[in-house]
């Protein structure tokens, strides 16, 4: 196997050719220099990937990249972006995860790891990245392992403090619902870049895992350390002071599940295959209840997915004996695998969550696919054991399991179900667009497909009535631009308030690291270019406005309890990016 030594402090690209089984350290081309995370993915896809290529073929590329703040020690800014042409949407995809990978890549000066080509069919490899080296190793012995066992085994072999990125059985089977798992500090396992089927892209490359050694004496060089330090400290302090995010904030106390009660009350909680917007057992799924259960069982609340995060919204959900089931139980999973399947018990949701994590499945896509399967009569809503038996088949790769593992749209086609909650081929997350219409506009226009992280309108009532039409297009665009900022800098979705209120903080942090001399206008152009590049890639891929639309049944079947339909006119949707 070829081993290539890197040198110098300059940022570099690590290109990994899976056909030749070779790695190459490249200088970062000028066109990518001022990009990171989602911004780099959008531009690299546009520059290097044929838009009409087979997403699971040799011409697609899989990109792992920290955001522009990665490795610099900014709180909540260590997310890892993973990108590719999506086999699920047929367009651009960026999906990101916490853990230690983004921070490690940033510290190692690696702007991106770009996986190219494909290994010979039937072979499986891992990529091992050291502090100054990289090598491709055979990994046939990992075949068929879930993500937990894969990361356990690799950390036993290569060091407990290394970071492991891996796919489970779903990725190996090239299932379109497959995501990519990353480890975090100590025994933390379940961070997932889950969306868009990128686990299948990794599987198609013949890459089971990437192991990154812990950076030793590696730091990000600062162009102006004082400027950076002042801005990053102010940013962290503003997060701590934010009533949502500080130590007394709901995000910290109850995690993302803090919103279960509110979304249910607003009639937007996916219930029984998006058949209703409120769930009669939602009280037992709330973050408040989850906190009581976890504390009573001596599980963990307020843990972190990224080192140094001041929000700490993670948890470790445990069973009645105090044994860990899954960490962390999150809102989207509770919605899609809980209420959407008629399950009103967090223990059951946690068990299903663990299975999805281990198989390497997106809980949103899988929950939606299971909802479709249940509507087709395969099992009953609320039948946890029946649902578990279906999910087991995904990990086993049975024919039925492959149908479900390939996501909601595939399940709908095979089972003859028309009510498929998806846009651009991707399942909707935990907000029904009929009663949260701003999210519907995002689902129906984002180049990422139905993705709440692309522009979530939840809680924006002061600007726009969630049940109305007026102002939704402007709100969605504004939120989509903010999301592009977060995803390109490595910031967590929840860390947005300070940099929205004071964009100069972001300008100063970036100038402090890179010395680019940017101003707020440069920053604004940077964010907008992300969306422009993504839309252009999708256009070249042949995606039209018709592909982005909300499913027809959601325009015609009223959703209880508000009895509303998604009625934002197509003309409004088509006009979202007019002012981009």
């Amino acid at each position: 196997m070829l081993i290539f030594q890197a040198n110098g402090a300059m940022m570099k690209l690590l290109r990994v050719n899976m056909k030749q089984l070779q790695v190459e350290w490249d200088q970062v081309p000028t066109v990518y220099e001022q990009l990171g995370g989602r911004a780099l993915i959008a531009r690299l896809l546009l520059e290097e990937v044929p838009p009409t290529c087979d997403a699971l073929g040799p011409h697609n590329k899989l990109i792992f990249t920290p955001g522009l703040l990665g490795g610099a020690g900014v709180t909540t800014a260590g997310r890892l972006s993973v990108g590719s042409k999506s086999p699920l949407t047929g367009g651009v995809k960026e999906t990101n995860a916490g853990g230690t990978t983004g921070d490690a890549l940033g510290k190692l000066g690696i702007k991106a790891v770009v996986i190219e080509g494909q290994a010979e069919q039937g072979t499986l490899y891992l990529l091992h990245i050291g502090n100054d080296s990289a090598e491709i190793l055979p990994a046939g012995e990992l075949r068929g392992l879930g993500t937990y066992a894969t990361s356990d085994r690799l950390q036993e072999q290569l060091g407990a403090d290394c970071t492991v990125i891996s796919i489970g059985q779903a990725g190996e089977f090239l299932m379109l619902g497959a995501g990519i798992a990353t480890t975090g500090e100590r025994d933390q396992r379940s961070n997932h870049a889950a969306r868009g089927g990128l686990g299948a892209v990794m599987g198609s490359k013949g890459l089971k895992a990437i192991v990154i050694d812990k950076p030793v004496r590696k730091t990000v060089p600062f162009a102006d350390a004082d400027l950076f330090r002042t801005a990053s400290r102010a940013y962290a302090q503003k997060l701590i002071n934010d009533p949502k995010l500080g130590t007394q904030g709901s995000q910290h106390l109850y995690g993302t599940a803090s919103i279960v009660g509110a979304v249910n009350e607003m009639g937007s909680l996916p219930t029984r295959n998006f058949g209703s917007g409120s769930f009669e057992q939602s009280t037992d799924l709330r973050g408040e209840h989850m906190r009581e259960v976890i504390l009573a069982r001596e599980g963990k609340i307020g843990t972190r997915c990224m080192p140094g995060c001041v929000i700490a919204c993670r948890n470790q959900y445990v069973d009645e004996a105090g044994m860990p089931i899954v960490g962390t139980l999150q809102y989207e999973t509770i919605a899609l695998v809980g209420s959407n399947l008629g399950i009103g018990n967090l223990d059951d949701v946690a068990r299903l969550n663990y299975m999805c994590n281990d198989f390497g499945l997106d809980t949103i896509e899988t929950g939606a696919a299971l909802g479709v399967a249940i509507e087709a009569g395969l099992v009953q809503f609320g039948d946890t054991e029946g649902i578990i038996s279906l999910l087991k088949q995904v990990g086993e790769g049975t024919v039925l399991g492959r149908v479900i593992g390939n996501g909601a749209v595939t399940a709908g086609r095979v089972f003859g179900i028309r009510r498929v909650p998806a846009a651009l081929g991707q399942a909707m997350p935990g907000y029904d667009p009929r009663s949260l219409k701003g999210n519907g506009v995002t689902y129906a226009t984002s180049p990422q497909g139905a993705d709440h992280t692309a522009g979530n309108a939840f809680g924006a009532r002061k600007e726009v009535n969630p049940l109305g039409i007026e102002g939704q297009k402007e709100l969605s665009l504004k939120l989509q631009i903010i999301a592009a900022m977060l995803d390109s800098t490595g910031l967590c979705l929840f860390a947005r308030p300070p940099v929205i209120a004071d964009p100069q903080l972001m300008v100063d942090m970036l100038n402090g690291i890179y010395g680019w001399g940017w101003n707020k206008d440069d920053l604004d152009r940077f964010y907008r270019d992300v969306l422009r590049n993504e839309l252009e890639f999708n256009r070249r891929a042949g995606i039209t406005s018709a592909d982005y639309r909300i499913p027809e049944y959601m325009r015609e079947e009223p959703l209880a309890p508000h009895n509303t339909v998604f009625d934002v006119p197509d003309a409004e949707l088509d006009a979202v990016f007019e002012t981009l």
Partner: protein
Amino acid sequence: MNIEIELFGQLLPRTQRRQTLSVKRPLLVREVANIIGLKPEEVGLITIDGVQSEMEDTVELGCRLCFFPHMSGG
């Protein structure tokens, strides 16, 4: 007539989560908050019968009023 109230999250932690307020006329949300001792700045989201509302909106008799703390979409 009554107004049904529910408090979520860390709002007024030592207070009953669900309360019934007997009133003789419709009230503003702000008035209800004042009656139960809730500071408006602690409230992030309000719903009246599931419809997102604001402090100056009116709570009709027989309605269900929910107060949520500041939250962030998951």
